[in-house]
């Protein structure tokens, strides 16, 4: 779904919650007259379960779209191996192969992206602008952060992840 220039994605989890509560509400309204009398606010409430995630996704996507050009200018091309905890807060750009994709269904995907020097977690707090799958060769732009804000190994807080036109070569030259 596109709102303005922003591609909005509803997570499968939000849809599942909406469907489950719809089924509950239908069943309850069939068997209970008390529920039927409350439908006037329950049905809008039900739709809010879908609308709120859409609005939140739109807001986060549009924010990311705003900061993307800034990061694009400031980020430095680095190898994964050179990313370390002294670089916390630095914008970086890496190129590599997507080894794993997790939590895509929550619209909070986490990718393991690896280049010839090693792999790193790439966390995104919204849905990416395009669908990314395992074995895609991607360019990641983001900021180096700690995995759990104040502790943990360095990971990339991803602002943009895009497929690039390159053949996926051997993972590591070892």
């Amino acid at each position, binding site marked *: 779904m596109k709102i303005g220039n922003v591609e909005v994605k509803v997570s499968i989890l939000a849809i599942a919650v909406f469907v489950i509560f719809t089924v509950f509400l239908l069943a309850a309204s069939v068997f209970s007259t008390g529920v039927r009398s409350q439908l006037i606010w329950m049905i809008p409430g039900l739709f809010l379960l879908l609308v709120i995630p859409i609005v939140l996704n739109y807001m986060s996507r549009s924010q990311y779209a705003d900061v993307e050009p800034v990061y694009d200018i400031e980020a430095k091309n680095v190898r994964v191996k*050179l990313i370390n*905890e*002294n670089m916390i807060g630095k914008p970086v750009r890496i190129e590599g192969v997507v080894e794993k994709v997790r939590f895509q269904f929550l619209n909070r995907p986490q990718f393991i992206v690896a280049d010839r020097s090693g792999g790193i977690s790439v966390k995104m707090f919204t849905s990416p602008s395009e669908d990314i799958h395992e074995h895609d060769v991607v360019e990641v732009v983001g900021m180096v952060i700690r995995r759990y804000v104040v502790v943990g190994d360095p990971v990339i807080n991803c602002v943009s992840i895009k497929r690039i036109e390159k053949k996926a070569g051997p993972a590591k030259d070892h």
Partner: protein
Amino acid sequence: MSQPDVHAGTKDFPAIYDLLVPVLSFGGAALAILVWTNGIAIDLRFTAAGCVLASVVLAYLAWVRPKKDIVALTTPIYALIFFAVPLDDAVATIILELLYAVSLSILLVRLKYRFGKPAAAIPEGGALVGPLKEYVDRTHQACARMPTAAAHRAALVVLRFTAGNYGDVPPEAHEGIRELEGSGCAPAFTRAFEIVAEQAEITEKSRPRPSLYKEFAASDAALLARPLLPKKKNEDGYDPGYDAALDNALLLLFAAGWTASEADRPHLRTAEAFAAKVLEE
């Protein structure tokens, strides 16, 4: 190509800590069973202290690892939540303790296999450890000849580069080269400064990798951590010699700074994990 589980600068932790987790948790549950079967009239919650202590040990084991496991770190909180409120039924308490002990054991195995080894403690006297120590020891003789001022610049170059302040690297490197003039040091150090300066500038200005770049000479090989690679692009257009030159240069400057500028050692400590990672194959 996956992220290495065991980070550089890690060590083997005494196995007693690993054993404490199942011993304390299952021990507490076993004690609860004994108390219950013998009809001893004490509050079974006391036996849950084993699970609470085991959670604390597990959280400690998670804390000392470079890669933190938030699940293991938060187990003491869950232990308090589960066991602070008394259950009316003794059987339920025992089953809860047993299930909790099993969960902690599974988390311990997960921690050991997915989150690597604990971070190495800094030895007495602040010596380096592992392959990095071996490399610094191997280059000690050549590095010790470097003037302190040049070694200080070498340390600054490594620190600036490690922090991603690429724009600050070339001026420091050129100062280092100037300090080395007429010092009689091995030419590899000058080349190391040149390589890092060139690549830092390329990174800072987001330029593409050049096909012609500064590199070490064959005569420098004895001082390098990695073998020299020829300038040659593979079928993907990737030239491994470019990255190898930077890795060797950074490691050589780290060794020089560590050996010949003792005042910079506390600062270089912050780049130790980085240097160890660069040294990894």
